[in-house]
C-alpha cells in the first residue's frame, strides 16, 4: 500500500485565476496527499473571500465541488 505524504501546508484548494486559497489552520492540523485532513483539535478554514469555517475535531475527506461540461460530456472539479 502506498504510503501517504503529509503536505507542507494544509492548502485545500488553490484558485488559478485569483491566487486565492482555502487553508486549514489549527493545532495538529495536517493535510495528506490523499486528500485526508486530520484536525485533532478542530480547524479553522480560511479563504481570502469566504467567511472562515470552523470544523470540530475529527478526520475529514477533502473534495471539490464538481460541475458537468455538456460540451465534453464529462464532469470535472470546479476550477477557479
Amino acid at each position, binding site marked *: 500500500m502506498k504510503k501517504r505524504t503529509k503536505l*507542507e*501546508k494544509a492548502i*485545500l*484548494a488553490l*484558485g*488559478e*485565476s*485569483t*491566487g*486565492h486559497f*482555502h487553508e486549514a*489552520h489549527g*493545532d495538529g492540523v495536517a493535510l495528506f496527499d490523499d486528500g*485526508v*485532513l486530520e484536525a485533532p483539535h478542530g480547524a479553522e*478554514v480560511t*479563504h*481570502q*473571500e*469566504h*467567511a*472562515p*469555517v*470552523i*470544523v*470540530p475535531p*475529527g*478526520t*475529514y*475527506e*477533502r*473534495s*471539490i*465541488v*464538481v*460541475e*458537468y*461540461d*455538456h*460540451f465534453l460530456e464529462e*464532469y*470535472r*472539479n*470546479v*476550477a*477557479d
Partner: protein
Amino acid sequence: MIEKLTDAQIVRFPEFVKKWTDIGLCTLPADRLRAEHGIRLAYETAKIKAPLKIVWTTSPLAQVLTEDVCLRIHKSASVLDSVRASVHASVHASVRASVRDSVHASVLDSVLDSVRDSVRDSVHASVRDSVRASVHASVLDSVLASVHASVRDSVLDRYYWWFGNGQHDAPWCAYVNFFREAAGLTEQTDKAEAHRLITESAGWFSPYTHICWITERHRRVCRNGRGQLHSHDGMAVEYPDGWGVWAWNGVRVNEQIILAPNTLTPKQIAKESNAQVRQVMVERVGIERVCQLFNAKSVDKQGTYELLVLDLGDGRTRPYLKMLNPSIGVWHVEGVHPSCDTVRKALNFRVGLTEDQIDDINGADWYEQGDVILKPKGVAKFKSSPTILT
C-alpha cells in the same frame, strides 16, 4: 534582546503599512540610478563580482522573454540564490541574535519564517498583523500573484521562477524595515539594504553572473474597495510596454470580458472551464441576458437556487444550476449532470452525494467553503445540506 515592543514602536505600525504599501503599488517610472546602486550592492553583499551589464526591460514578460533568448546564446548562471542567501541568512542570524526565539506553527515562506522565528509570539504577531499582513494583502495577494500567473500563462514552460520581485517584495521589506528603523536593529539588517533599495526603486529583477535584468515599475494599478485588482475600462495592472493583467474583482480575465462583454457568445460562456471566469462573464453580461441568450427555461427552484434548462445552440438542451454566491453576492451558472431534474438532485451532484447517502436526522454534519467540501471520513450517511456554507 527584544522581549516586547514599546507603545512608541507599536504606534508606528500604520506609518510602515502606508510607506510599504505605497512602494508596492507605485506606478511612477523606476528610479534607475537608485535601483542599479541596489543591484551592485546586492552582488557585493553576496560577495559576487558586479554584473557587466544591467539591462532594463519594460515588463516582467519582456524580462522573461529577453532573458530566455539571451541565455540560449550566452550561458550565464543565475546568482539569485546567492544574492538571496547572503541577505536573508545574514539578516536572519543578526536579528535572531537580538531578539527572543519563538515557535511558530505555520510557515509562510522561508524568508519570512527566518525572521519570524527570531521574535516572540507577541512581537511577531503584532508586526505581522499590523504591518506585513496589511502590505501583503494589498500588494502580494492581488498584484504579485496576478502578474506571476499572467507571465506563467504567457510563456508556459519557458518561465522560470528565478526573480527577485522588486517593488512586490514590499511585505518582506516592511517587516525588516520596521525592525531596522523602529526597533533599532540597524547592524542586524544592514545586509538587507540592497534589497530595500531595489524594492523601493524598481520592478522585478533577475541577477546572473554577468548580467542583471531589471524591470520598470507598472504604470497603472487599479483595485476595488476590497483591494482586489479590478478595472472596468482597461488593464488592472499595466506595464510601460502595454503588457499587463485584465482583472475583475480579483479574477484574471481577458480583454473582451472587460471592454466588450456584449460580444460574448453563449458558446464562449458555456465553454469557459474556469468557474470564476464564467462567473465574471455572467456578471458582465447580466444574468437576465444570459438566460435570454440561452433561451433558459426554469425547471425547479429552491431558495436562491434555480435549475435551468439551457439551449446549447446545437440542438441540445441541458440542465444548469443558477445560484447566488453567498460570500460576494453574484450569480453564477454551473452545468449539472443531464439526469438532474430538480434543484436537490443538482445540489447532490455538485457535492458528490447520492440519495441513499442522505439522512437529515442521523446523518453526519459536513462543511462547504466555496468549492471545497469537508466530510467526516468513514461515514456512510450525511445531512443533505452542509452545516456551514460560506
